[in-house]
């Protein structure tokens, strides 16, 4: 560990790679592979487990939901809002200019059947459940939903109109498996 041999080996390196350099590199890269292959399981174990992923669909009978009413169902541990919209609500949702929207989307893009609005009931700000499902709830300035946590207002299409949330309420994947049966997920 004196100065001189250090210098000599430095010079060696510059001139041509030795067998020893090759061994160092291969050993180091095998080490990196080994560390990586054990690190990944340690990180990935925290992602949703298979049984969590398997709970990914819910079927709901929406026949009993009258015009103007809404129900909340659980899908993947989170609430999904299903609203049977009135004609007035549909009209309101469709008469908005796209330029007035923070996250521009037409109402047509957000529904499969215009009477039924299906969306995840999680505020896109920090994840509270917005109010507006019950007739007695405050519905916000746009007569849709109102998130009490930090004051986000959503319209009758679940689009963000005012407040801190950046995007519209999310539309989950769903399909009508019968006239009045929705499969979410």
């Amino acid at each position, binding site marked *: 560990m004196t100065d001189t041999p250090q210098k000599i080996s430095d010079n060696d390196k510059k001139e041509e790679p030795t067998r020893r350099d090759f061994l160092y590199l291969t050993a180091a890269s095998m080490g990196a592979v080994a560390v990586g292959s054990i690190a990944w399981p340690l990180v990935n174990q*925290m*992602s*949703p*487990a298979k049984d*969590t992923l398997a709970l990914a669909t819910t079927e709901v009978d929406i026949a009993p939901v009258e015009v103007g009413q809404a129900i*909340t169902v*659980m899908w*993947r*541990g*989170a*609430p999904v809002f299903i609203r049977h919209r009135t004609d007035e609500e549909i009209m309101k949702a469709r008469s908005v200019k796209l*330029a*007035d929207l923070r996250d521009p989307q037409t109402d047509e893009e957000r529904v499969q059947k215009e009477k039924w609005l299906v969306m995840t009931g999680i505020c896109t*700000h*920090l*994840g*509270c*459940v917005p109010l507006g499902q019950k007739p007695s709830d405050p519905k916000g300035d746009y007569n849709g939903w109102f998130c*009490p*946590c*930090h*004051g986000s207002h959503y319209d009758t299409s679940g689009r963000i109109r*005012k*407040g*801190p*949330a*950046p995007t519209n309420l999310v539309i989950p994947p769903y399909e009508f498996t019968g006239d009045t049966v929705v499969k979410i997920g």
Partner: protein
Amino acid sequence: MASGPREKFDNNVIEWVDSRLPIFTMLQKEYGVFPTPKNFNYFWNFGAILMIMLGIMIITGITLAMHYTANANLAFDSVERIMRDVNYGWLLRYIHANGASFFFIAVYIHIFRGLYYGSYKQPRELLWMFGVTIFLLMMATAFMGYVLPWGQMSFWGAQVITSFFSAIPLVGEEITVWLRGGFSIDNATLTRFFALHYLMPFVIAAVVALHVWALHVTGSNNPLGIDVKTKQDTLPFNPYYTIKDSFGVLVFMLFYVGFVFFAPNVLGHADNYIPANPLVTPAHIVPEWYFLPFYAILRAFTFGVNLPILIGLAITAFAMKPFFSNKTKEEINLKTVGITFAIAGIFFLIGYFSQYQLESGETMILGGSFISAAFIDAKLCGVLAMFGSIAILFVLPFMDKHPVRSARFRPWFRIATLLLVLDFFVLMVCGAKPAEGFWVPLSQVAMLYYMGYFIIGIPFLSKFEPVLDLPDSIHQAVTQGKTKKSVKKKA
């Protein structure tokens, strides 16, 4: 640690151990004769208080864990069982729950002490940074602990805080799902939080060891902020400060025990005695009181960064440049700086009000949505500012170049810092109130002062605050009663 020549101990057993592992020599050196400035005030008690609090949290935590069940269906009931059936379970839980609050009271006073007396400055920068690390770890630990009883506030607090990560562009959603271990806060989230809540206090203990080690290299700062020069300036730690610390700990405990026995739920939220319900958000979600100032900073961002604000930020950076350079105070033209700031301010106002207009749908006088629309949205700004407000403490030692440590001899810094304390309380109140009406602009002003103190105030004072004459030594100041700022301006 302690090696080299060693003095023999009279007691045979102690001597037998010490000659093999010089642990008693070390204790004697670091806590017995350790030379400590003789002018400490009561602010210097909080380090010892924090050590005791950490011990109390670990002991009550481990005993609670013997009865607690980390399962989404059972957790709430297991905590109720601790309260009703487990022998002295109520006591252990109240000591632990109120302990978190008192831990934070102590740490905030401790941090204030460091700020006010300039303890973060050379040569104690690393010591300070370990301290900030401990503070961050404490926040993470307390947050995860609060989730464990699985009441409404536990659940929705976890929901809101893990949602911070969804603000990260592109991968935010994936990271949030990974953190939660599912598509919502559920059993997987609870079990990992329990595992980490159990682990982190021991990590804290390890960082505390580094913190104290670094302290014993530089020695303590003191209320005068001047270096220890001779033996006359110090006292041996034992018995002088062992006694004073014990007294301080006891007084602190009096308040703590008062809460545990007479007001155990005052610092908590009644909603947390309602079992978690993923379908109903409590009407008014608020974090624990010790997180409120940071929560207020998060919510102060009802606006994002748009073009005018970006330009304003660039101009601010330009105006601040001379303060971070080697320029002396004479070389900086304050008039130019002032005008540059005024221009930046105009851009900020345009950016702020144009977004406000876009939001409220009023007529646009300030150009179309291209100019006013935010490209870094309010949510991301809020999250960045909240983390930034703590991260900035890490770089504080490198931003403050003023040669004087203690606020006693820095009249301008003193006022700015006392205002910061006031500001912290204003933020705390704002964080507890609903984000509407008058509270929104108030929290925005308070947030601006907090940020401005560090980003503009500290570098400005570094250059422009006059350097006063300091006492020659601690001993001289103490014996002549010159501990307050009685000093004239340096010639």
